[in-house]
C-alpha cells in the first residue's frame, strides 16, 4: 500500500469495523455510536478512562512492535506482562521497609526485568534449539498465568491469607495520581516517553538499525556480518521488558495488588495495537489511545446493553484483517516459484 493511503485507510477501516460490528450484533447504530463516543470522550471522566486504558496497551503494543520489527513474532506479551508483575510483587514483598520511592522504582524495574526474562526464555529456546517463538511464547503465556495463580495463593498471598491476591501496596508506593477525583496516574507519561525512546533507539542507534535490518532482510544482515540470533534475542528481551513494564504500571497505577484476574488480556491486545500502528513506535501512541477509547466507550455501552468489551476484540480483529488484506507488508514469508 502506498504509505500516503495508510492512515486514511486505517481510519476508514476502523470506522467501518465499528459500524459493521454494531450492525452484526443488531445494536442500534446511532445510539450505540453515541454511547461509545460519550464513554470515551464526553467528559473529563471519560477522557481519563480512555487514557488510563491506553497505558498498558501502549506499552504492550510497543513491546509487540519492537519484536516484530526484528522479524520475531512475540505473541507472549500476556505472559511477559504477568510474569513481570509477579517479579515486581515479589520485590514489593521483600522491600516493604524501603523508602516508598525506592519501592516504586524497584517494582517497575523488576517488572521490566521479569518480562525480559520471560521473553528471554523463548528467545534462548529459539536461538539454541530452534523452537518456534510463536508457539513457545503462546505456551509460556499459560504457564505464566498458572504461576500467577499459584503465587497469589502461596508465597505472595496477602498476610490475611483469605483471598488469592497479594497485599495492597501502600499509597505512597503507587504511581502518583494526576487528579484526586480521577484514577489517572503518571504512568501515561512513562508510556508515551517509552514510545519516544524506542522511536529514537530504532532510528538513531546501531542496535536499532540492526534490528530493523534483521527483520527486513535476514540474509542481507547475515551477509553484512550481523549476528542475527543475538540481535533477535536482544529485540525479544526488550519487547518482554516493555510488556513487563506494562504489567508494572497496571500494578502500581491501577490495581495496587496482583490477583487472578490481574491481566485483562492487555498483553495479547498489544498485538492489534501494534499492527494498527504499522509497527511504528510513535504511531502506537494514537493507536493505543484509540484502543483505550474503545474500551472506555464500550464500558459505557455495557451499562445499557449486553455488549461490552468483547465488541472491541471484534472491531480490532476486523481492522487487522482489513489491513492484512490491503498491505503487502503483512504478506507471508513467501517463496515465489520462479521457473
Amino acid at each position, binding site marked *: 500500500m502506498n504509505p500516503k493511503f495508510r492512515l486514511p485507510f486505517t481510519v476508514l477501516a476502523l470506522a467501518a469495523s465499528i459500524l459493521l460490528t454494531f450492525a452484526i450484533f443488531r445494536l442500534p447504530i446511532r445510539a450505540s455510536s453515541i454511547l461509545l463516543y460519550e464513554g470515551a470522550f464526553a467528559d473529563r471522566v471519560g477522557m481519563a478512562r480512555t487514557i488510563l486504558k491506553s497505558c498498558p496497551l501502549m506499552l504492550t503494543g510497543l513491546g509487540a512492535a519492537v519484536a516484530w520489527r526484528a522479524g520475531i513474532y512475540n505473541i507472549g506479551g500476556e505472559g511477559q506482562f504477568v510474569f513481570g508483575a509477579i517479579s515486581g510483587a515479589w520485590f514489593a514483598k521483600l522491600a516493604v521497609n524501603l523508602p516508598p520511592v525506592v519501592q516504586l522504582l524497584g517494582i517497575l524495574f523488576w517488572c521490566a526485568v521479569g518480562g525480559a526474562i520471560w521473553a528471554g526464555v523463548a528467545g534462548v529456546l529459539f536461538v539454541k534449539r530452534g523452537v518456534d517463538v510463536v508457539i513457545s511464547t503462546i505456551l509460556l503465556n499459560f504457564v505464566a498465568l498458572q504461576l500467577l495463580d499459584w503465587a497469589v495463593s502461596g508465597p505472595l498471598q496477602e498476610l490475611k491469607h483469605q483471598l488469592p491476591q497479594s497485599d495492597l501496596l501502600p499509597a505512597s508506593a503507587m504511581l502518583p495520581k494526576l487528579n484526586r477525583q480521577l484514577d489517572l496516574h503518571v504512568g501515561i507519561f512513562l508510556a508515551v516517553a517509552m514510545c519516544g525512546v524506542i522511536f529514537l533507539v530504532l532510528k538513531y542507534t546501531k542496535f536499532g538499525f540492526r534490528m530493523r535490518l534483521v527483520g527486513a532482510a535476514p540474509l542481507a544482515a547475515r*551477509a553484512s556480518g550481523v549476528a542475527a540470533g543475538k540481535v533477535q534475542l536482544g529485540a525479544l528481551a526488550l519487547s518482554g521488558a516493555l510488556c513487563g513494564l506494562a504489567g508494572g504500571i497496571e500494578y502500581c497505577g491501577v490495581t495496587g495488588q496482583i490477583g487472578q484476574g490481574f491481566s485483562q488480556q492487555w498483553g495479547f491486545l498489544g498485538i492489534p495495537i501494534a499492527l494498527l500502528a504499522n509497527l511504528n513506535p510513535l504511531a502506537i501512541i494514537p493507536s493505543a489511545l484509540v484502543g483505550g477509547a474503545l474500551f472506555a466507550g464500550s464500558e459505557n455501552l455495557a451499562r445499557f446493553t449486553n455488549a461490552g468489551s468483547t465488541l472491541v476484540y471484534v472491531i480490532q480483529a476486523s481492522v487487522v484483517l482489513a489491513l492484512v488484506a490491503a498491505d503487502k507488508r503483512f504478506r507471508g514469508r513467501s517463496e515465489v516459484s520462479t521457473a
Partner: protein
Amino acid sequence: MSLRVDRVSKRFGSVEALRPLTLEFSPGEIHAVVGENGAGKSTLVNILSGFVNPTSGSVTLGGVELRGGPLAFRGAGIEMIHQHFTLVGSFTAEENLALSAAQTVWRMTRTDDLAAKALTIGKALGWNIPRNTPVRTLPVGVLQRLEILKALAADAEIVLFDEPTAVLAPDEVLDLFNVIRRLRDEGKTVVLIAHKLSEVFAIADRVTVLRRGEQVFSRLIGDVTPEEVAEAMVSEMAPAIASKASVAGDAVLRITGLTTVGDRKELALRGLNLEVGASEIVGIAGVDGNGQVELAEVVVGIRRSTGGSVWIQEGARIGYIPQDRQTDGLAMSMSVLDNAWIEGVRRPELTRGPIRLLNKGRKWVRDLISRFQIRAPSIGTPVGSLSGGNQQKVVCARVLDQRPDLLVVVSPTRGLDLKATEFVHQQIRDARSSGTAVLLISTDLDEVLAISDRVLAISRGELSPLTTAGALVGNSQ
C-alpha cells in the same frame, strides 16, 4: 516429430535475453546448446519446456504450435531434467516417482505400484536405486537418475537436459552419457544444455553456439573443431588477457587447505589453497554450485571453516559484494539510505559510540549517489524499486567507498546490461589500482577474463590453474 523454435525472442524488462532465434531439434539426434552464462541458454530451455512464454515467435512440435504452461508441454511429451531437481527431499525414491506418476488425487493405490513403471525402466538401465530412504540422503547422481526416470516413465519423446554434468562425478558422467546415447538410439530427441566442450564433443551430434542471446552457428559435430566453438563462445577473450595489471603486492589473503560444508552439510570446499596480493584481481571461474559462495562466505567470516586456515593481513578492511543482491546484498523494502547504512554502521566517522550520525549519513549517501551515478529519485526511495543496475551500484558504492584492503566479489554483474556491467568492472579495476586485493568469483567467464590479473578455475570445491580458453571451458580436463 521434431521440435522447432521459430523466430523466438525473449525480453526481461530492458534485457534482451534471446534475440529472434530459429532452431530445429530432430529425433534421433543429441543436440547440444553451448554458451556462457547470460548467452540465453536457460531462457531457451525454459521456453522449450513451457516455463517461460516467448516475447515473440513460436514453438512447434511436428508442425503443431505448443501453447500453455509446463503441464501442456509435458503433455506433449517434452520432459525437462532440471539442474535443480524437483524432488521432495524427505520423500523416498519410490514416493517421488509415485508423485510424478500419480496424475490424480483420487487414488488409493500404493506408492510402489505407481512407481513400478519408472523402477522397471531403471532396472533395464542397470540402475539400482534405493527405494526406501529419503532422497535427501542420496548422492546427486542418483537424484538425477530419478529425474530421468520420471521423464521416461511419462513416455517422453523429447528430453531436455539442463547442464546435467555440473553436479556429477566423472564416473557418473560416463554413465549419464550412456543413457543419453540410448535415448538417442531409441529415436528420442535429446537437447543438452552444456558448459564443457569436452563433453559436447564426446556425446553430441550437433552443436549450437549462443552468445549474448544470438545464435553464432549450428553445425554437425564433425564439421567443427573445439577451438572454433570455444572461440565462438568467448570471442572477446584475447584483448582482455592482454590488459594485464601491475605486479601484485604483499599477500593480503592466504588460504591453506581450507575445507567447509554447505548449507545442507555437504562438503563444499576440499582443501583449497589460494593467495591474493595487494593490487591484484584474482578471478575464480566455474559453474554454479562448486563451492564459490562457501569460499566467499568463509573469507568474509560469515561461514565457519571445518579445516585449514584463512589468514588475512592484520587490520585489513574487508569488503563483500555477495552474489545475490536481492537477498544477500540488499534489504529490498528499505530505502537507499538505509541500505547504504548496512555498511555505514561500521564506519567510525559515521557513528559515535552506539549512535548513528544521521546527518553525516545523509550527506555521505548523497555523495555516493553522485559519485557512483546511482539513479534514484531520492535517498528515501525503497531500493527494490530501482533497476537491477542501480541496485548493484548501491552495493558497490557502500562497499568500495570504504576503500577495502580485501574485496570479495561474487558474480557482480549478473543480470546487468552492458553499460552497468562496464561501470561495475571499472569500479573493481579502480579499487585494484588503489591497492585493494580483489577476489573475484564469477560464473561468467567473459567477466573473469575481462578484468582478472590471474585466473583460476573452481570445480567441486578445488582450485586449478587455467590459462587457455580451451581449458577454461573444460576442454583439457
